Each structure stands twice: as C-alpha cells, then as structure tokens.
C-alpha cells in the first residue's frame, strides 16, 4: 500500500498486488499471546518490492554458528568457574571446568573456521585489528581464550606443569567473560532487525545462557562434594537467562514477533521449558547425583535451544521485509512528530 500516509495525495498502489494489502492498526493483543503462536501485530501496513527481503539474511550456516555460540558461552563461564575454584581450592571442580572450557573452546574454533566461505584463509582474521568489527575484536578474544583454555585442559589431562596450569587457567578465566558475551555484540551489530533492536539485551541473554550451560555441565560432571559452586552459577544463570529472554520476547516492537512464531518460536518455547525445568530441579534436587546430572543436562539443553532460537528468529526477521520496513517507518514517524525533519 502506498496510499494514505505513505504517499500523500498520489494514491498509487501496486497493480498486481491484492486490492488492499493488509492494512493495520498497530495494536497489541493484551492477554491473547499465551499460546505463543499468536502474532503480536495482527496485520501490517507496509510496502515491499514483491514481498522480497530488503536486507540479505546472514549466510552463516546452522548448526555451525548456533553451536559456536553455545560452546563459546559454556566454555567461557566454565573457564571463570575453573579459575576461581582453583584459587579457592576445589580440585575436582577445577579439573572438570578446565576440561569443559578447553574442549568447548577448541570445538567452537572448529565450528567457526568451518563456517568460513574460505576456511583455509582463517588466519586472515589476524591480519588487522578493527575495533569497529565485533568479529575482529572477537578474534582477539577467542584466540587467546582458546589457546589458554585448550593448553590448560591438555596439561590437566597430561598432568604436567602444575604452575603453568594455574596461569593458563587464570588467563582463560580473564578472557572467559568477554568470550561468553561478545557473540551477542557479533549478532547485534548487523542490520538483522530482531538482533539489532535488542543490542543492549542480547549480551545478558547470552551471559545468562552461558552460565546456565557452563554451570550445568560442570554440575553434572563434578562429584557432589564439590559441585555446589557450579550448581549456584547454573541456577543464577538460568534465572538471568529466563528474565532476559522474557525482556526480548515481550518488547513493544514488531521485531519481537519472530521470537514467537515458526521454528524460532518452537525453539524458544522448548528452551524456556528446559531452562525452567532444569532450574527447578537444580534447586530442589541438585544435591543428589541424579538430580544434578539431569538438571545440568536440562540447563545445557535450554541454553543450546536459546541459541538456536535467537539465531533462527534473526534469520526469520531478515527474510521478511515487514521487520525492516515497519520499525524504520516508525522511526521516521517519531522523528516527524518530534519535528526534527521536514519532508
């Protein structure tokens, strides 16, 4: 529709389109969204070029990139847990956390390189340092992190150089936090509407999700006598993840919609179910062997599904021009209402 608001006075509309492409009042359904499949915005008034996407959807492969996000997060939070537990004296938790961090970081590097269009050129990432590129900054977080975490896990397995091990563990712990949250900036600094709109919220989604995954995996693999720190981190992390995801999913804007519908919606609902169940079970039965193992697995699954859901929601929002046009139109309208531009 190009009549009315968008083209004052001209009244032109596309000849082969429907007589009146869905018109809409921007109305939210108050309580009707319980089932999850109900779109927040019933119909949209927007114009597109034959319904084609305006921006290009990311060419990143799935499951490579969601797995990278998950493994990087789990490895990052485990590395922090390992370093702190090493300093406070918990040898078994330290060992598990170091192995999780090392394994996760090496695997995540593998997935990242496999996702490149020209994997043999992965070292080109180290040609330059570009503060404007989250992927360049991330390269300089991931490289030292995975080197330190991988080496620490290796000497942990081999039993060599105990002092070097502690140093490597602390280095990986220092880079663990940025490792877990930089991936949120990586996704948010794109024109993908459902990622960019939440650029201040996604780091907390990913941070919480990383703690739930890292804490959960460590809790499941550590003997009960030492697993308390992992359990606490997993519980707090899952709580933060659920709250942060709730903030993303229930935004006023139309770009929240992809998190509810389609495959992304199914991922997000499954993620919430896993995280909530894992959280409950960890609180109630986390001190038992079975409870710790099952709740740890549930929390890790919830974190993994969250990553797949966020990734898919972004892809869906990039493929539909609605999510590009409507927020930009609203932005223009807000500016015009504020009187800052005259057109």
């Amino acid at each position: 529709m190009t009549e009315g608001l968008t083209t004052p006075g001209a009244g032109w509309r596309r000849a082969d389109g429907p007589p009146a492409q869905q018109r809409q009042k921007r109305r939210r359904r108050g309580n009707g969204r319980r089932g999850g499949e109900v779109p927040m915005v019933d119909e949209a008034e927007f114009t597109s070029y034959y319904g084609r996407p305006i921006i290009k959807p990311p060419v990143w492969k799935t499951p490579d990139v969601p797995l990278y996000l998950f493994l990087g997060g789990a490895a990052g939070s485990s590395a922090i847990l390992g370093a702190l537990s090493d300093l406070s004296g918990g040898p078994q938790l330290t060992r598990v956390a170091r192995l999780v961090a090392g394994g996760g970081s090496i695997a995540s590097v593998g997935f990242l390189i496999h996702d490149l269009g020209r994997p043999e050129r992965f070292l080109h990432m180290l040609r330059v340092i570009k503060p404007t590129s989250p992927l360049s900054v991330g390269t300089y977080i991931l490289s030292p992190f995975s080197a330190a975490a991988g080496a620490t896990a290796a000497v942990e397995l081999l039993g060599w150089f105990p002092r070097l091990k502690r140093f490597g563990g602390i280095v990986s712990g220092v880079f663990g936090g940025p490792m877990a949250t930089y991936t949120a900036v990586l996704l948010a600094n794109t024109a993908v509407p459902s990622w960019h709109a939440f650029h201040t919220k996604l780091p907390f989604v990913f941070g919480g999700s990383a703690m739930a995954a890292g804490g959960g995996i460590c809790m499941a693999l550590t003997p009960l006598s030492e697993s308390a720190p992992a359990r606490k981190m997993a519980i707090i992390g899952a709580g933060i993840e659920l709250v942060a995801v709730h903030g993303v999913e229930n935004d006023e804007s139309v770009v929240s919609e992809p998190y509810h519908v389609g495959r992304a919606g199914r991922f997000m609902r499954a993620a919430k179910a896993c995280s909530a169940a894992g959280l409950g079970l960890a609180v109630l039965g986390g001190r038992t062997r079975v409870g710790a193992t099952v709740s740890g697995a549930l929390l890790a699954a919830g974190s993994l599904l969250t990553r797949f859901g966020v990734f898919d929601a972004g892809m869906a929002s990039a493929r539909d021009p609605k999510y590009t046009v409507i927020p930009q139109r609203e932005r223009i309208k807000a500016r015009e209402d504020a009187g800052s531009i005259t057109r």
Partner: protein
Amino acid sequence: MTSISSASPAFTGNDPQNRLYGPLPDVQGEAGYDDDHPARVGFFTDTSVCIGCKACEVACKEWNLLPMDDSHGTRDVIGLSGMSYDNTGQLGANSWRHVAFIEQVRTVDLPMPTMGPPSHVDAPRGTGHTGAPPADALGLGADEVLSAQTSVLNAEALSEFDPQTGQSGADKQVRWLMSSDVCKHCTHAGCLDVCPTGALFRTEFGTVVVQGDICNGCGYCVPSCPYGVINQRKDDGRVFKCTLCYDRLTDGLQPACATACPTQSIQFGNLDELQARADARLATLKAQGVETARLYGRDEDDGVGGAGAFFLLLDEPEVYGLPPDPIVTTRDLPAMWRAAAKGAAMIVGVALTAVLGSRRAR
C-alpha cells in the same frame, strides 16, 4: 607512508570527535589518504528517466565478468521471477546493478464521457453532449436505448474489469516505475566497518571495494549492509559487490553502467556536482507538479552519513525495495560493548558469589 585504515574514522585517530555516524566532509581523508587524493565520486540515478532497458545490468555483467544467476541469486540458473519484467530480482554477488519494475494503478475521478443518464436521452439532438449516435438515427425507441445503454455499459465494464485489482478500467490510471539499484558506497559503510580481515576497504575515490584475495568468506558484511547489497557467492565462498568500476576509474573511464545508460538515468561524476545536479532536477520535477519525487541517499544527516550512490525516486523507498530509514549498525556499537562488558562482569560476579558462597557453607 600513510597507513590506510579500513575502519570507521572513529578509530583511525584522524577524528577527535570519535564519529561512528553522521556527515563526513572528507571521507578519503578520514580513511587516511593524503590531501591530494581525487574527489569523491558516485552515482546519481534519476529513476524518472529510467526506461528499464537493463543496459546497465548487461554492461556491468560484461565488464566485471559476472556469472549468470536467476532472480534468487542462484548461479548458472535461468529462472523467471514470474512477477514482472524483473528477472534479476535483487542485488547480489552476481548482480551489481538491478533494475526494479513496479506497475502501479490509481483510481482517478473521470467524468463519464460516453453516455448521458437515461433522462437526457430525450434532450434535443445535436447538442452533442454524448459521444453515442443519436437514438433516433438508429431507429430505436426510448426503452431500447435504455437497454442498449445498459448492455453497452455492462460490456464495457466487463471488458475493462481487472480481476487483479477488482476495479473497472474506466477510472484507472497505470504507471510504471523503473529504477536501477546499485551499491550505495555509504559514507559510513556497515560492510566496511565489520569486515574482520580488511578485505573491504575505502578507495581513494571514496568508494568501498572488496579485495578478493583477502576475503575469507566470514560473511559478516552480508547482514551488516542495511540495503542488502553485498552477498556471498556460494560456490566461491567469498563476497562480491559493486566496485563502482574501480579498475575503470583508475584508468580515467566512467563505470560501465553509466557509460551504457541511454537516457542518462545513471549519472556518474564527482559527488558534490551530482548532488547539485540532483537538487536542480528535483526542483524542476516539483515545479512540473511531480509531487512524489524525492531524493534518496542524498541527505548527509541520514543513518549512513549520506550515500555515494543516491537516487531520485517517484515513490516511497520501500516500493523499490529500499529501506526507508537505513542506519549503519556500528552507530550503536559503544552501547553494545558497554552491555557486553556488563554481561561479562555479571558472569564473573556470579561465579565469584557462587564459589565464595559455597566455601563459607563448607
């Protein structure tokens, strides 16, 4: 030797104001070129004179040796889009110019010229207020005239009824919009800002070009372009987009598309001259009553700091498949990193709490 930065001016040290967006008077200078660099060049695409011949697309494909692709960007496939004369479909790795076709209708309030209302049939002949032959001359009575009128009207209405628009054709106007889209060569280019290898760089002409021997196909530039211009060639792995014919520019030639354009819809030149020309053209069109004409990408205060390739459009940008209010996402990068730093600190804090809390309990 000056070092040429491939990042936004904010982090080159050349700009004390740390700008990630907004107007930049000297794009090349901000990128690190010496003062004697050539003027910034660009395209002004005046869609009001585009005839949709696609000479620009063909010239671009020929000069840049781009492979064939269908309307979804699939390489080496012949495919019809099935929606219009546009079988290129979109910009992509293999299509660096894309001519959009839009057919539009609008209802117009025309007086009925063919028949008067039945009460006027008995009006004195010869007044000529209807185009139909006088009823008496055909030897018809009043009733027959009425039924003939009705059937004529019905037949006319049926023959001109357009099932797609649900309207009869008698009160309908049709127009075609054609527009040759291209990479905008933004002042603040999202693709350039996020490229982690330095494969994308700012040329001495102020354009943005991919170095094919550096690109490792990470694909980060693809979703970072607010216009959906750059894309990956699947079988190749690397990304490709318009270079504004960097090779031709260095030899003093015009870009291929502008050279081929038969109506001067695509105009190439120094950006400031093009901007002045576009302003004049817009004023002319407005004076002629084309109220919907507007410039797109001309405003240096827009979300990308103004485009090196800008357009004169006759309808809203999204009608042509262009975003109405594009922004370079790097604009929000400081806020993102602040949030990420808080998130990382949160993880450390939670882990510290968990470890210390457990120790005390033990």
